[in-house]
């Protein structure tokens, strides 16, 4: 093969050389005998080389045909992880004897692998389908019986030597939403990591998780009651983070984010300067090689949403404080079979708003959830969650809930889930409505979906 390439190159060069050496203008009337002779020699050489190339090509073709015939069954076993069928494997010959290690190996020797052009410059593209069904009884926040809840298209790529970008477009039942689209600058000085674009705020844990990566079909009550619903704090802005000095064996990271100030029903920017800010401090430690502890403190502040009737809405703020703690266990030798996660998140909301008689007031609401997930084996995961949360705008209303979930994993790329959800939901002070629901979900992943941060 290499000989053929060398010969072809030689021919090409000879042709080019002869083209360059041929008389460029018709007015050049004389051609020396010597040049004539040289041209003729070159032409002869080209003919000889062409003949040799044709011969070599035929040889190569013969060789290929012979080899492909011989290696047909081997190709089958190497490339396809097919079911073992009767008689199929018996016909597979022994692996050929390996060639000896070449005496000299050069760095440029490349066998294909990672340098494959298969992906060219396209981003990694993925699509995640999230189908949810609901049965049972819920008068307070009913959801449809069947819904293609979300179809998330992800595109992720390295932009240049200094940055990468991630975009997730979410196609819901009512429209399209840019869930996240941001560029991350990875090569900044002083250990800084800068993200610019629209992103889920680094506020606690559940706020950062995409729908399809949640441990439950739904989000906890506190997400809806205190941080604005399914999308939570998800806004356009800047995020700057850095590792902080920490005691030995601890990982400490600080994040500061500034957003436009529009996030679902939590924050609204009434004026251009009504920005919202988020701060997050994360501490992490490996307790053993299988167990670790992840702690976080978060703070968010912005103008209270939904106050368009107020005379000066920019003077109304919502402050939210959160603390999270996660304990994980995953034995390394059996990581795909067993794991356990126990997570708690607590939220305090202080929301400025107008009272029913148009007086400035601050509502202080508290909410939390506690969840545990246990991977029973490679295909089954069990989980339970306890929820309790006040309403941000009416702190005297408190919802309580409980969920149990069972997840089946046909493979890494799909999940089938069933969740029982009970809710003791407040409709007015001291007036509650009980909700008993059965949810099921089918999740499927197409393409290369990049890993989510730990």
């Amino acid at each position, binding site marked *: 093969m290499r000989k053929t390439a060398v010969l072809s190159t030689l021919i090409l060069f000879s042709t080019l050389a002869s083209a360059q050496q041929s008389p460029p203008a018709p007015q050049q009337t004389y051609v020396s005998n010597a040049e004539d002779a040289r041209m003729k020699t070159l032409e002869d050489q080209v003919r000889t080389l062409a003949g040799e190339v044709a011969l070599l090509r035929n040889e190569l073709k013969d060789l290929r045909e012979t080899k492909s015939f011989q290696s047909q069954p081997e190709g089958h*076993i*190497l490339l*396809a*992880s097919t*079911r*073992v*069928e*009767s008689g199929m*494997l*018996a016909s*597979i010959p*022994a*692996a*050929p*004897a*390996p060639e000896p*290690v070449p005496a000299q*190996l*050069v*760095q440029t020797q490349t*066998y*294909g*692998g*990672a340098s*494959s052009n*298969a992906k060219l410059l396209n981003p990694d593209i993925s699509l995640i389908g999230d189908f949810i069904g609901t049965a049972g009884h819920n008068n307070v926040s009913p959801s449809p019986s069947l819904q293609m809840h979300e179809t998330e298209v992800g595109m992720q790529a*390295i932009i240049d*030597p200094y940055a990468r970008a991630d975009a997730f477009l979410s196609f819901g039942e009512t429209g399209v939403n840019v869930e996240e689209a941001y560029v*991350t600058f*990875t090569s900044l000085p002083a*250990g*800084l*990591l800068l993200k610019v674009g629209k992103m889920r705020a680094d506020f606690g844990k559940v706020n950062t998780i995409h729908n399809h990566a949640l441990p439950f079909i739904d989000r906890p009550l506190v997400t809806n009651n205190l941080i604005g619903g399914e999308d939570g704090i998800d806004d356009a802005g800047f995020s*700057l983070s*850095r*590792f902080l*000095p920490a005691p030995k*064996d601890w*990982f400490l990271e*600080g994040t*500061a984010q500034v957003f436009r100030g529009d996030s679902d029903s939590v924050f609204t920017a009434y004026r251009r300067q009504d*920005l919202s*800010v988020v*701060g997050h401090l994360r501490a*992490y430690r*490996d307790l053993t090689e299988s167990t*670790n502890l992840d702690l976080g403190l978060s703070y968010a502040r912005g103008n209270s949403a939904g106050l368009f009737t107020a005379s000066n809405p920019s*003077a109304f*703020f919502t402050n939210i404080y959160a603390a999270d703690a996660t304990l994980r266990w*995953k034995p*390394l*030798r059996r*990581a795909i079979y067993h794991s356990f996660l126990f997570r708690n998140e607590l939220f305090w909301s202080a929301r400025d708003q107008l009272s029913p008689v148009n007086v400035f007031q601050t509502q202080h609401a508290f909410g939390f959830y506690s969840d545990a997930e246990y991977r029973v084996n*490679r*295909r089954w995961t069990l989980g339970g969650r306890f929820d309790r949360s006040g309403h941000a705008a009416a702190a005297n209303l408190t919802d309580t809930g409980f969920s149990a979930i069972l997840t089946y994993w046909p*493979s890494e790329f799909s999940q089938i889930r069933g969740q029982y959800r009970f809710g003791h939901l407040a409709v007015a002070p001291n007036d509650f409505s009980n909700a008993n629901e059965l949810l099921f979900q089918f999740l499927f992943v197409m393409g*290369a979906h*990049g*890993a989510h941060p*730990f």
Partner: protein
Amino acid sequence: MRHTNTHSRFSAVAVALALSCALLFPASGRADDKLRIMTATTDLAALAQEIGGDKVEAESIARGYQDPHFVEAKPSFLLKLRRADLLIVVGLELEIGWLPPLITQSTNPKIQVGAPGYFDASRYAKILEIPTGQVTRAEGDVHPLGNPHYWLDPENGLRIARAIQDKLSEMRPNDSAYFAQRYASFEQRLKQADQQWLAEMKPYAGRKIVTYHRSWPNFAEHFGLNVVGYVEPRPGIPPSPQHTVELIGMMKRDGVKVIVVEPYFDLKTPNSVARETGGQVLVLTPSVGGEKEITDYFKLFDYDIAKLKQAFDATH
């Protein structure tokens, strides 16, 4: 109201100040002049240490007894990656589920993809099982760029070591003679050891084996073994009853007696297959550090070959 506004500004400034203060702390100091090498797997760390000697400090993210497809991207790895001068990866999308976010979050420009400190070992190795034609996940968790378990061929170990020598010499030109000498010594020792391994495996050439996952094609090709089936019906798909029955039938028919299992897979199905076929389950480690005594690249093959010989002799 003015009070609230002031409070808001104060909060924003406090967050900004906290971060700025953090910037004043210098990045961790270097106690020595060693090149810090982080690798995805222990085998690459072992090869880097062979060539780098006492001029480098090589450490792996994954442990030798851990499935390299499923490593958790723990923040504690970020602290190590942040200080790394060189990151050596297996590539071929083996680490796609955990390494990219670690690289991005490491805030270390030296090891970003494409930077001089990012080293993809698969570029220098002989890769098998590169799919041709259409690739779909109907085949399970296939690797579209080829089988990433290529380090289990000593010839590939040598190729990677040579490329590491070039990389280290490029990063530390003053020590290039040292790295060249370390490589020459490694090459000589590995070739010698390989002759010994090949001689030991020669009597078993062509032996048929079944493996749990497709981790062994390079090993099998080099040592003349014949992998005729897998406990997994497809890569990454857990064993199914139907496939297990078919596998047992095939093993009985063809007289296959050895089932090779990586240390991170459950032994329940392999054991039941072995009981049905009168075969033997053999836990072989695909990586350095898979067992306590496997402390370098040589001991990996010493261990696996010794175990294989025992199993072949016992099931003859």
